[in-house]
């Protein structure tokens, strides 16, 4: 490929525009969340202040920001742990042929294809028919897992497809029990990927809206709370909340990336 002709620069410019398109709006509300107390939802900035961030933590604010934030964190942690464990188990299972493997695989992929509102409605109806009370830690938890597990399982597929089985055979030849070879050979090698699966589980659950809406029961998660706010809040406090939760997500991605890079580096220096 030519690397410097006009075509190259045209493509580079297109890419730059795409990144601007992806991030421009988010950066804009980040700036606007520092509006002065008299500022509105659009430019110009009327002063610079932390007024709207402070406003977020005042009790008179519409809705229940603190409670929904805590619930979303707890739910995301739960989803993260379960996603890592279940995807790891399934990843190990799929390395061999077993009865029903194909059905299970397609069922898992179906979790990505079936529209979210159907999963939400279906779980809501199921709880209704059986007479159970939907709650964020039961019905919403299950709804989130149908979204995070397909990603987790696909990542484990990719990981084990590239995994060098000779390492396990070597461990076995040296007298390691299968448990020891899993614990001391396989798990350390795939640990960075497991951290990645955990990040996916956490983030996708933390931001999930469509699958939660009919399955959350009486208590809102944070995305439900934010969606409700958009209809009745017309001040930059909306942006302050948006900026905070986006910074939280981005901070998490950066932190996890650093952890994974450190793990890889340690592996390489050990090897």
């Amino acid at each position, binding site marked *: 490929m030519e690397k410097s002709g006009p075509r190259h620069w045209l493509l580079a410019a297109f890419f730059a525009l795409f990144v601007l398109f992806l991030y421009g709006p988010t950066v804009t509300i980040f700036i606007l969340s520092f509006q002065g107390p008299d500022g509105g939802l659009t430019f110009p900035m009327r002063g610079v202040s932390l007024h709207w961030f402070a406003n977020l933590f005042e009790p008179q604010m519409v809705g229940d920001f603190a409670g929904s934030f805590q619930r979303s964190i707890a739910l995301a942690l739960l989803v993260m742990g379960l996603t890592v464990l279940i995807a790891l188990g399934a990843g190990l299972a799929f390395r061999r042929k077993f009865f029903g493997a194909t059905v299970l695989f397609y069922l898992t992929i179906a979790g990505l294809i079936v*529209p979210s*509102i*159907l999963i939400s409605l279906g779980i809501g109806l199921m709880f209704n028919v059986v007479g159970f009370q939907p709650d964020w830690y039961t019905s919403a938890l299950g709804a989130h897992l149908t979204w995070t597990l397909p990603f987790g399982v696909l990542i484990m597929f990719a990981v084990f497809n590239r995994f060098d089985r000779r390492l396990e055979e070597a461990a076995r030849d040296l007298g390691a029990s299968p448990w020891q070879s899993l614990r001391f050979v396989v798990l350390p090698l795939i640990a960075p990927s497991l951290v990645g699966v955990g990040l996916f589980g956490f983030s996708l659950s933390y931001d999930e809206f469509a699958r939660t809406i009919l399955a959350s029961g009486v208590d809102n998660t944070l995305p439900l709370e934010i969606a409700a706010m958009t209809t009745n809040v017309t001040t930059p406090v909306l942006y302050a909340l948006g900026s905070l939760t986006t910074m939280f997500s981005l901070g998490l991605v950066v932190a996890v990336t650093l952890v994974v890079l450190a793990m890889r580096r340690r592996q390489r220096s050990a090897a």
Partner: protein
Amino acid sequence: MPAAPQGAAATAGGRGRMRAPRSALAPLLPYLQSIALWLVMGIFLLIPIATIVIVSFWDDQDYALVPAFIFDNYRDALGSWVTWSTYLQTIEHAVIVWVFTLSIGFTVAYFLSFHVRSSLWQMVLFQICAIPFLTSNIIRMISWIPFLGRNGLANQALMDMGITDHPLEFLLYSPFAVILAYVHLYALFMVVPIFNTMMRIERSLIEAARDAGAGPIAVLRHVVIPLSLPGISIGTIFVVTLVMGDFITVQMMSGGQSASVGLMMKNEIGLLQYPEAAAHAVVLLLTVLMMVWAILRVVDIRKEL
């Protein structure tokens, strides 16, 4: 939880040799490891979908579900022109969004995989394209307000340039805003799979094509595009199913000027008309599955996994 640790211990027997006594468990191992996945996908995907199918034949009286076997819900759902026009509009959205996300996604992935030299930069730029996937869609939609609103940046810029002398109302809360938000939210679902397939294209194939006299366009048309088809179809499945099932984007961005099947269902659910909503859900599911099937008929993506 899958019994991974105990399960792994049981593999011992699989290899024979010293740990023969435990071999009876070895054939059961994959079942123990995958049982949790079965349970979750069964209880929270399969049974809920079955419930929807069953309830779509039920009756509702005084906001309560009454078990029955009636076809009224389907007759009501499919017999009204509102449904048909809503379906047409949803499919139209899907097609428009598909064209935009595919053009953008292909171009971005092509630049990343064939025009970025250093593999470090390749990964950094790729991550930049993928990270918004891990942030909130709702907030990404809200973030268009300062741009498209009546006093937003777009209107100010247009007025400063003298293109218009009054703010354009159609930018926010309009069909235009819906399409823009969809493309903004879902373009990365194209970039990621297409980039993945493009990275696997043997670079020697492209050199061979050029040695054989192919120009850049011919290389693109006869080598890059055919070999990127699996990624393109995975991206297409994502974008099409996401748009077909959407309700929140249309609700937040259209200002009531657009409809979608998902929003129609959600409104029925708001009125506690569950059997009607369930009938729509079944029709929507069949439509989406047919679209996915059609895409898979064109491209076999299994070898991508």
